């Protein structure tokens, strides 16, 4: 199973639910890697008509073709499979531009994918509370260095080195919806050079 129970944390830390089919004029689904499982699970609960109004945007990441053929076989009105979030971004924006009120948005997979797609959907005008999310797969985090503002993807250890400025950063649960990233703060600011041993917190 690729589902994760996140321990309770501070208020800004996002929490995720379980996707359910809701009535709507259209269904925009954005997923990466094991997020495909959540869509396949949801598929067990809906009839064929549902997919005619659906648009799936999928980024397999390391899962290769494990899920993509199953997703394609669902028969969504539109299906796109792309190499990276960046590559899919213009399609996501265009899809949001074209849809009307009543479109349901479903995000699933890694926190990085859900956070970034959530930003696009809320910028397009959907209240964030109306967007469904379900976490699946890796718990690696998208982190912003509060010092240089650089973003490091797929952080799995605490502390970690900022991929931009090289500082050792403490992984905080503080989260920004605007940049869809957690906050990394210099771990040895008070006592330069005193850097705790790295622990692998996320997989």
């Amino acid at each position, binding site marked *: 199973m690729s589902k994760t129970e996140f321990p309770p944390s501070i208020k800004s830390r996002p929490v995720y639910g379980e996707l359910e089919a809701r009535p709507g004029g259209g269904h925009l689904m954005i997923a990466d890697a094991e997020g495909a499982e959540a869509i396949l699970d949801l598929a067990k609960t809906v009839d064929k008509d549902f997919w005619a109004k659906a648009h799936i945007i999928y980024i397999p990441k390391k899962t290769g073709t494990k899920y993509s053929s199953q997703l394609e076989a669902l028969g969504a009105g539109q299906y796109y499979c792309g190499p990276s979030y960046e590559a899919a971004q213009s399609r996501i924006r265009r899809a949001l531009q074209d849809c009307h*009120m009543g*479109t349901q948005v479903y995000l699933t997979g890694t926190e990085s994918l859900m956070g970034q797609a959530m930003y696009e959907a809320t910028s397009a005008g*959907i209240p964030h509370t109306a967007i469904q999310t379900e976490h699946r797969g890796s718990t690696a985090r998208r982190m912003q260095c509060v010092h240089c503002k650089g973003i490091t993807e797929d952080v799995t250890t605490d502390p970690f080195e900022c991929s931009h400025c090289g500082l050792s950063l403490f992984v905080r649960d503080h989260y920004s919806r605007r940049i869809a990233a957690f906050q990394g703060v210099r771990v040895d600011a008070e006592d330069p050079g005193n850097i705790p041993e790295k622990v692998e917190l996320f997989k």
Partner: protein
Amino acid sequence: MSAGTAKLNVTVAEVKPINDLVTRFKFVRTGGGGLPTFSGGAHTVVEMQDGDITRLNAYSLMSNPADRGAYTISVRRDDQGRGGSKFMHSKVKEGMEMVISNPVNLFSLDLRAKKHLMLAGGIGITPFMAQMHQLAMMGGRFELHYSVRTASLGTYAKELTERYPGKVHVYHDDQKEAIDLPALLANQPLGTHVYVCGPKGMINWVHGTASEMGWPREAVHSEEFLAPASGKPFEVKCAVSNKVVQVGEHQSLLEALEAAGIDAPYLCRGGACGQCETNVIGYDGKFLHHDHWLTDEQKAGGKHIMPCVSRFEGKTLVLDR
């Protein structure tokens, strides 16, 4: 009384009948000076000294929110009502001094919206008039769909059509015209918020249709002030102030508390804002909840009551006031 918001002393500057049912009132600050600015959708509670009775009714402000010179409200006469609107129509004259509350907004625009879709029924047009002033000043995108009984009862329909050409759509009941809500909602761009003010049936229709069509709850806004319902007289024991208060047939529980000198908070007096929520200490009987503030669970729980619109039938009711 300290229970509502701060009060404003005003003078009636104009009383203008608009049609068979609606009269418009304009208030300026007594002794001169500006009134507080407000935001579109705000209301004021007008105090009416009707003999021994003080009537307090909430009315939406319809003037330009940026105009501090005067406030304007429109009052629809309700002959079956408890007397507030009739008092406004028959007793309020130009030059009269009155007391109104500072504006309170329970129906504000969500300024994150990319487009504002307004649905009005009858006198429900008034909050939208201030909102449209505000949006027109800001360059906001909006459209109004306004349902009226007949052209002659289409309060402000003509002047709004002239003021905002292409944005105002009027539907006449007597000509069998009706808002095609599903079609209207289906074609709204992402980021649209819908606002409805009118009769209860219309409000429920909009909430229900929008929800069935997958609209987020947060993008649907409504306002309806309820008149306090009449009912059998009952007795209330107030534990904090140690008083026993009689609530008359045509009096609300809130009005009875006020008449007894008990400090009871309020903002809307119409079951919408939640300000007057009161804890129930004990009861033997049944509640007649009329508000749309408490959840169904709370209503069934017997621990809370909204004194502005709700009543009680039974032997004893003890409140935390």
